[in-house]
């Protein structure tokens, strides 16, 4: 996997998720789950706290996932995954992959304590947080990763007034084995990073931006377009952190040398959730993004 990048041509045809599941049309998570499981393979146990993924899996006794899945309580994805790993170790099983797959609420808010504890203990599993930037499964309420200005069901008039948490940075401060950010718009990059993460011992954290047409107010056909715009405008950055070293992934690294980066308004424009944003706030956001890329350029070029 190291020498060969994943492409649409070499991605396995084998499917691990049944079609016709309960995901909404245009669901970013749905694409990620399909591609992600191709990288994870069958020798795995997934741990899933409440999220859209709980519903997407299907209702008892029907399941859309062909792998073993342990549904757990909202705050306990990382600790339940620790328990699964401990049980496998106790049975001398060193091959089965343990993957916790949670949403942004389950990770940045209610689940952050368990995750922090698991990293500190040096647990050995992969934690994937798909970030659709709100509590989508309960009807689009603000979460810790909801961006400033986004209208949600409980920030309905002015949009969220606070900044979002930079979750991968919080995780990286724990020094786990691997941290990466991904996007549903770049599924092969996601596939590559999962494969790499699973080749490492210790706790691996992958944060993946997952556009949500129903929650963001975008057309279903624009999931990938909007996901790409988040990266192309420099707002959402794809990178890896290994041994404390941050490395931009190709779609973001390109921006370092790009003469003109499209404005963030290109990304915000197609989304109804940002309709309450004033010109002034957009301008401030643009300045923040510009400053961030100035820093990257000075550090990485």
């Amino acid at each position, binding site marked *: 996997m190291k020498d060969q990048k994943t492409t649409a041509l070499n991605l396995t045809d084998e499917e691990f998720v049944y079609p016709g599941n309960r995901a909404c049309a245009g669901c970013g998570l749905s694409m990620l789950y399909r591609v992600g499981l191709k990288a994870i393979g069958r020798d795995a146990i997934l741990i899933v706290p409440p999220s859209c993924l709980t519903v997407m899996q299907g209702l*008892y006794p029907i*399941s859309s996932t062909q792998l073993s899945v342990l549904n757990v*309580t909202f705050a306990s994805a990382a*600790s339940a995954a620790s328990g699964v790993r401990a049980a496998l170790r106790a049975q001398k099983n060193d091959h089965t992959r343990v993957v916790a797959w949670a949403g942004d609420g389950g990770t940045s808010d209610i689940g952050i304590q368990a995750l922090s504890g698991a990293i500190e203990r040096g647990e050995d599993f992969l934690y994937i947080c798909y970030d659709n930037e709100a509590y989508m499964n309960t009807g689009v309420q603000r979460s810790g990763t909801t961006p400033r200005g986004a209208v949600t069901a409980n920030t309905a008039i002015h949009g969220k007034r606070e900044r979002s948490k930079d979750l991968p940075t919080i995780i990286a401060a724990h020094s786990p084995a691997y941290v990466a950010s991904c996007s549903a718009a770049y599924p092969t990059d996601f596939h590559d990073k999962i494969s790499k993460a699973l080749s490492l011992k210790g706790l691996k954290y992958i944060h993946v931006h997952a556009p949500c047409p129903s929650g963001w107010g975008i057309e279903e056909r624009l999931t990938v377009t909007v996901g790409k715009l988040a990266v192309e405008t420099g707002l959402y950055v794809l990178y890896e952190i290994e041994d404390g070293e941050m490395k931009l992934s190709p779609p973001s690294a390109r921006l370092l040398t790009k003469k003109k980066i499209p404005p963030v308004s290109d990304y915000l424009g197609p989304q109804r959730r940002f309709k309450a944003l004033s010109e002034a706030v957009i301008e401030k956001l643009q300045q923040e993004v510009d400053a961030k890329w100035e820093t990257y350029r000075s550090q990485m070029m």
Partner: protein
Amino acid sequence: MFVFESGNVAAATGVKLARVQVIAAYPITPQTPLTEKLSEYVDAEELEAEYVAVESEHSALAVCIGASSAGARAFTATSANGLLYMSEQVHWTAGARLPMVMCVVNRGIGAPWSVWNDHQDSISQRDAGWIQIYAKDHQEILDTVIKAFRLSQEICIPVMVCYDGYYLSHTYMPFEVPEQDQVDAFLPPYEYRHTLGPENPTSLNTVTLPGGRPDIHGNFAPGYMEIRRCLHLELRQAIEVYERIDSEFKAMFGRGGNPIAERYLCDDAEYVAVALGSMSNQIKDAVDELRDEGLKAGLLALSLYRPFPSEFIASELSGRRGVIVFEKALSPGNSGALFGDTRAALYECTSRPFLRNYILGLGGRSYKTSDFSGAIRESVEAGPEPCDQPSWIGLNR
């Protein structure tokens, strides 16, 4: 082999003999010496297990849930607010039908903070779907832990082994430690009917609709309510299963024989005290004192609280003149929980005794043997006066 050790070490010894594979725990007084001891066994390689020092009780039980689902014998222990902090997981464990044992070293619940003993913690979890067994001495703690693992595994229902903080956890008593090979013969290795793994992919604890639903082959699958009812029915059956396991234990180790309750001078007793946990030891002395006075008193020292042994209670207490329920817990605004359960079990009896309820020892308030004899005497004198409200022992006036 006889040893002289604390109640917490008795519990740890039972856990070690049960060859537990995964232990997860978070420190809370008065549970700490138990889990410290277990970490020592693991570090010293006396026990081959994974010890996961989690960041909270919620995670402690989450680790056990993960481990138990993935095929390992798991154990945790807690007290008071720790138990309440993991309450969501306590319910989850029973709903998921996981074989597991947890020791609850009983302590009062804050606020206000109390680190001292009462039973409010475990009693507040009585409706979680776990089996609850209360031990009254160190030997019972050790033996119950071993029997609990066997019971839990046979019926896929988790078991709480409860014992009094300080009164038992931190006091020293002699107890016999069984031989490992005997315990191995009694308790088979861990086995779970739905072990999670790649060999047989399965989704556990998925969203379940109110109504039943056919699977992809058209076979009707149970809905949420059938699943909960099944837990209830199998909890009722657990009484018989536990009796059988206890008699096997007695045949092998020579101890036991009172899985539901110890009957102390009950045969001809006109007045019977009912209690959970270590206060029973003191009530026995009170009963002796009353017998010396010519009062026909007895004690039903209850071990099994959930499933509630209603038939046993009804047959034991029917026809007595009076029943006095002593409790270190309260359902505020009502009465003691055990009192309510006992009264309900007696409703169908043709010859109903009068009932009185005494609340004592909350937050570690001390009590004496004479408090029990005094309360029984007072109850006898009051006779069958209807008495809805509990009386209190040891209140400062």
